[in-house]
Structures are given as C-alpha cells and as structure tokens.
C-alpha cells in the first residue's frame, strides 16, 4: 500500500515538475489507435477561484501544440500485448506530435482502457480532535477508510475522496475549518491489474519518457465528454473503443463508478470479416462506410461490392446489401450494450437523480447507436464529442479523441486523490517528535 502511495506521489511530483517546465504530453494508448497530444502550459494561470472562471477546470491554462495519432499495434483489449510493437506505436505517435510541436517532451500522462478496472466504495469515520476540522483530520479520516481486499496482483489506479460528512450534514466538498464532532468520508477506489500498469510504465520508459501520471480512459473521456451539469446531476459516460468499452458514472462532479467491458469495435470488424469472409482491412472499411444499426427498406436495395484478392472470381466479385451488414453489426453492438447495462445496474445507475447516458469514443460514430442505446440503457442518450480546447487540430476533435482531450484536462486540473493529502501523523516518522512537542505544550 505505501509503495503505491509513494509511486503515485512520485508521479504527481513529476507532473508538477513538467508543468513548471511548461510542456507535457498526454498519451491515449488504445486498441485501435495511439493518440498523443503535446500541451504547453502558458495560458493565463492566474485566474483565481473568485472571479467566476475557476470552474473552467484549468482549460485556459494550456494549449495543444502537437497532436498525432497512429494505428495501434501490440495492444489487445486495452492492454499492452506485445511490448515491442506497442513501444513502436508510442514512438510513432510521440515523434510526430513532437515534430508538430517542435519541442522535446520528457513527461507523459497515459491512459488505457483495459486491465479490468474494478470499483470500490470506501467509508471511514473519526472523531474531530479540536472542534474544527483540520488537514490532519482529513488525512486521518482518509486513513481510517477500511481498505478492501482488492486481490493479489491488483493495483490502485484512482482513490478519490468523493464525499465528506460532518455530523448529520453530508455532501460536503471541503470540510476544512468547519466545526463538528464526527467526520466521515466516502472514497471511490479503482483497482486495475498490476501487470498491465507495469507493462505500460515499462513501454513508456523504453521510449525515454517519464510517466507523470496514469488514468483510466473511461474516467478521462468522461472528463471531456460530459458537460458540467451532467457531471453534477449524474451521468454515465460510455466510451466505445476498439478493444474495450469503458463505463464511468459521475455524480456531484466525482467519478463514483468505473468499469470496462472487454468488447469493442474490433469485434464488430472481426464479425464482419467472418460473416462476409473478407479481409479485416476490408471489413473495417465496410464498417466505417456502410455500417449502421437500424435497417430500413432502402438498405435492402443498397448493394455493396465485396472485393477480395483470393483469386476465386466468384468469391472476389460478390455484392451484399447494406441490410446484411447491419444484420451482422447489430447483434454484436446489442451484446456490448447489454454488458454495459449490466455494469450500470451493478453501479446503481437507476438511483441517480439524472440518468443521462453519453456515448463517446470512436465506436459511437456508428449511425443509429444512440437509438439503439436508448432502447437498452435508458431514454436520455446523446453522442458526446470532446470539449473544445485551445489549439486542438480539427482532425482531433471527433469523439474518438475524447479520452486524449479528457486526459489533457486531467493534466491541467487533476482531481485530488488520496495521496495528495497529508500523511496522518500517526503513520509518519514525525510521530515521536510530535508527541514530545504535545507533551511539552500540555505540561508547561
């Protein structure tokens, strides 16, 4: 536990150092593509919280000066599968982004969608010592949260305090300085496979880069695809990726649930490839050009030329109707959405005040997805495109860049995590010295 604590703190310090230098890269390692944005932090930094722009989540602080994406290699289901290939993909994306930015980047913040994230809700409660809540009390209440058994080979990715309660009052964002007796906190913890995160760190290190932060891509894409009201009132962000579909639930501007379904757009391509017996590249092309989810009478008449290179003329010159393509795609998407539904059910999504569903990620560009999702997930469904940030090229404004953009927001304005708070006195080595001081104060 303390090892992770230290690793996360080291990453946080590295991020601070990178912000000081002004340049940091964000890296979205997906199954379909690897996207890299280079950010320069030179914007008006000095907006205080008081003048009404503090809630811009730090977007005004940075500018995208380099953006590149490349076809991903060596990544399966959002996890690194072949180290060398993944490293080459990262190198490609980073090099072209660097070339566009004309600046050398040493620190990256990465996100990935796989590694089977699991959500835990933690609760802790203490007595407030001196009447008013101090930093130490917050550290103690966070330390008092009972650590669930996350299992061997698992690692904590996010541990965010989402709620504080002081006596009978709940829903406090910042209880410091308030008077009370019992302080309780709720914390949301996301654990992932340790090996996946270690592989990621290793791949990044092999590219001569320093890892300055890791985030779950479900969390990152929700940061950019959900608008502020949705984050406040309760919404789920479904990130349709190539290899995995991320689910994250937000309430009161905190992520309260994250999960991922290891099914994605690549499976649709594989289905098409098998169903039409065409190469994968051609199936991908058919999916992106003719793909859809709701068949109409017109689609029966729209014939698609299927060409391939096997040498068998009869096989190479076929036509299928668009309805056939939709007929292959739709069951797979339904399956994915059913799994997402299961996740949302287990998260208690139906109890949220607002049940907005936001679909994002490359897969959300499939026509008719919002209609299908509203049948399976709930009535309020919309397609989410990422927030517009300064300097982002037009090519990177689509929903497939939601997690990259969200990650840059995450870099500019990170959520407080467990390791950002003070170490409680009882755990630190300063304990004995403090005891002496307290004894002196009380007896003299």
């Amino acid at each position, binding site marked *: 536990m303390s090892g992770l604590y230290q690793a996360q703190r080291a990453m946080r310090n590295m991020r601070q150092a990178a912000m000081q230098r002004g340049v940091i890269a964000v890296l979205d390692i997906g199954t379909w593509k690897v996207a890299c944005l280079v950010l320069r932090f030179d914007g008006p930094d000095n907006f205080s919280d008081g003048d009404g722009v503090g809630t811009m989540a730090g977007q005004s602080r940075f500018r995208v000066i380099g953006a590149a994406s490349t076809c991903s290699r060596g990544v399966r289901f959002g996890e690194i599968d072949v180290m060398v290939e993944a490293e080459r993909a990262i190198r490609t994306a980073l*090099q072209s982004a660097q*070339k566009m930015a004309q600046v050398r980047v040493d620190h990256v913040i990465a996100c990935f969608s796989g590694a089977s994230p699991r959500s835990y809700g933690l609760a802790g409660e203490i007595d407030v010592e001196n009447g008013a809540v101090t930093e130490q009390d917050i550290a103690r209440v966070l330390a008092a949260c009972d650590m669930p058994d996350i299992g061997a080979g698992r690692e904590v990715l996010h541990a965010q305090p989402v709620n504080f309660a002081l006596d009978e009052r709940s829903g406090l964002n910042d209880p410091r300085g308030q008077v009370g007796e019992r302080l309780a906190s709720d914390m949301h913890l996301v654990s992932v496979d340790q090996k996946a995160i270690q592989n990621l760190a290793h791949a990044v290190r092999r*590219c001569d880069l320093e890892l300055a932060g890791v985030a779950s891509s479900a969390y990152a894409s929700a940061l950019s695809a959900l608008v502020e009201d949705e984050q406040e009132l309760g919404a789920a962000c479904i990130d349709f990726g190539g290899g995995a579909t991320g689910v994250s639930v937000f309430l009161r501007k905190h992520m309260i649930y994250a999960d991922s379904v290891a099914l994605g757009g690549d499976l649709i391509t594989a289905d098409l490839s098998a169903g039409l017996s065409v190469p994968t590249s051609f199936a991908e092309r058919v999916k992106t050009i003719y793909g859809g989810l709701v068949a109409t009478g017109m689609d029966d008449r729209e014939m698609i030329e299927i060409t391939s290179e096997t040498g068998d003329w009869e096989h190479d010159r076929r036509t299928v109707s668009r309805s056939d393509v939709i007929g292959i795609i739709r069951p797979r998407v339904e399956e994915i959405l059913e799994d997402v539904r299961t996740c949302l059910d287990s998260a208690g999504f139906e109890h949220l005040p607002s049940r907005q569903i936001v679909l994002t990620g490359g897969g959300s560009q499939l026509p008719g997805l919002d209609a299908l999702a509203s049948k399976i997930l709930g009535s309020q469904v919309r397609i989410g495109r990422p927030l517009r940030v300064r300097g982002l090229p037009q090519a990177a404004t689509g929903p497939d860049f939601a997690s990259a953009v969200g990650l840059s927001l995450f870099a500019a304005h990170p959520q407080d995590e467990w390791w950002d708070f003070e170490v409680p006195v009882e755990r630190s080595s300063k304990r004995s010295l403090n005891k002496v001081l307290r004894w002196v104060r009380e007896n003299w």
Partner: protein
Amino acid sequence: MQPVNRAPYVLREPAAAAPRDPAPSRMAYRMQRMWLTPIVRSVLRVGIPAFAISFAIGFYLSNEQTVDAISHNFIEFRRSIEERPEFMVHVMSIEGASTELAEDIREIVPLDFPISSFDLDLPGMVEIVGDLDAVARVDMIIRPGGVLEVSLTEREAAVVWQSRDALEALDGMGHRVGPLVVREDRPNLPFLLGDGADAHVPEAISLMSAATRSLPNVLGLVRIGERRWDLLLAGGLRIKLPETGAENALRWVLAQHQAQDLLSRDLAFVDMRNPAKPVLRLTETAKANLDQNRGLMRNGSN
C-alpha cells in the same frame, strides 16, 4: 489434353508488400529528440558553424606569406584607387603673394606633381606656410581639375628696425616681415633703433605719426634701456620721452614748438622723462653764446 472450358487467366497484381511501418527506428527517435533539445540545437546551428568558420579563418591566416599577400593586395588596391586621375593634383596656384614669397613657398612645400590628393597633408602644409614671417594668413584648398590653391595674405611692413644684429622690416604688431639690406630700401617707413623696440611697435607708430605731422626732420625713435623712447631729429636733437604718457609728452613738446618754435633753438635735447618738470639742454655753442650774451649784458649794465 487441354480442358475445354478453361477459366480465363486472372491477371493478379503481385501480392502487395507488407504495409510500411511508419514507426521511427529507435535511433531515429532518439536523434529527433536530441535535435529538439534546445542546447543541442543551438550548438549545432550556431556553435559548430561559428567554430568551424573561425577555425578556418585562423588556419588560413596562420601562414605569414598569406597575410603578407593579403596586405600587399590591399595596399595595391588602395593605391590604384588613390591614383585615379580624378584624385590627382597637378598644379599649385598661389594667390596674394609676391613673387619672392611665392618662390619661398614653393621651396618649403616640396611637392612632386602630379601627386594624389590622398597624399597631401593640407593641415601640415598650412602650418608650414603659416610659419613663414611674411605670411599673415593662409588657406589651402584642392579645386576640381587637380589644382592646389594656396590663398594667403602677406604681412605689411610698417616700420624698419635696426636691431643689434640686423636691419629688419616689422609689421604693425611688431612681427618680423623680412630682412632689409639698407634702410633706403624702405625710406618711407619709420625707423626704430634699440633693443626691445619690436615689442612696442604700435606705440612707436603712433609717436612717429604724431611727430612727422609736425616736424619735417624726424629721423626715428630709439628705445632706451628697453623701457622708454627717444625721438631723434635731424641735427642731433633728442626728445627724451617718459615710459608712460610718452605721446602726451610729445604733444606737449610739439605744442611748445608750434607756439615758441622750441625745437628750432640750439638745443641738445628736450628731457621730458619727468613730464611735470621738462628740462632743456643747450648745445655747447649755445651755452657759450648764452654765457657771452649774459656777460655782455652784465658788463653793459655795469
């Protein structure tokens, strides 16, 4: 046996090569990152070229012969520009000088015409010519057409001074103009004698002009003891003038002369050294005559 219904040959393109991997090699990746490092970039773009250029120049100039050749070429080039006909001076024209003075100037300013105007040291030549006694003021200018024009003003001789060594002409301020062989070369100029007379020429000129207006027989002025003047008249009469107020004293004597015909008497000198107490000295004959006349008168009266 050939099959009857042969499938037509399908022209197949050769199997497409594996799609090119755009990934940079590890080496290329590192090189690019290094190139984007500011210090490396500035060293490669500025430092190394600057060093190479300075090293090449230094190496080239380290050979003495090369340096000599370069400086020789430079001097040759400079010469070739200086000696263009536009810059050459062919003639010196001297204006406002007498013939002798012009010859003197040509002597002391030895120029081998034609000469480039870059080689002429005009301020130096102005100084040299200005140092001549006979020259009051000199200007030199190079006119288009290669003419060095010397315009000068000569000093006007105002008095003749017989010093201990030589007979010289002086201008109105006492500056030497030139030597004279005999006094008769300039008979119309006042004549001065004695040491230190050249330092008080203006005073001497005013005294002389006052004297010559009234007296026809003025010989000149003698400076006595480098402090005061004696006016010398033909016939040996001297008027001894005081150190200060010499002109007033002289006017007083001249007024006496006009009124009483003083200077026509048989006098040796009129001593005005103390203006309050003028003293007359008679000549020996006059004294004898006077004495004789007085004796006669006394005897007659007796």
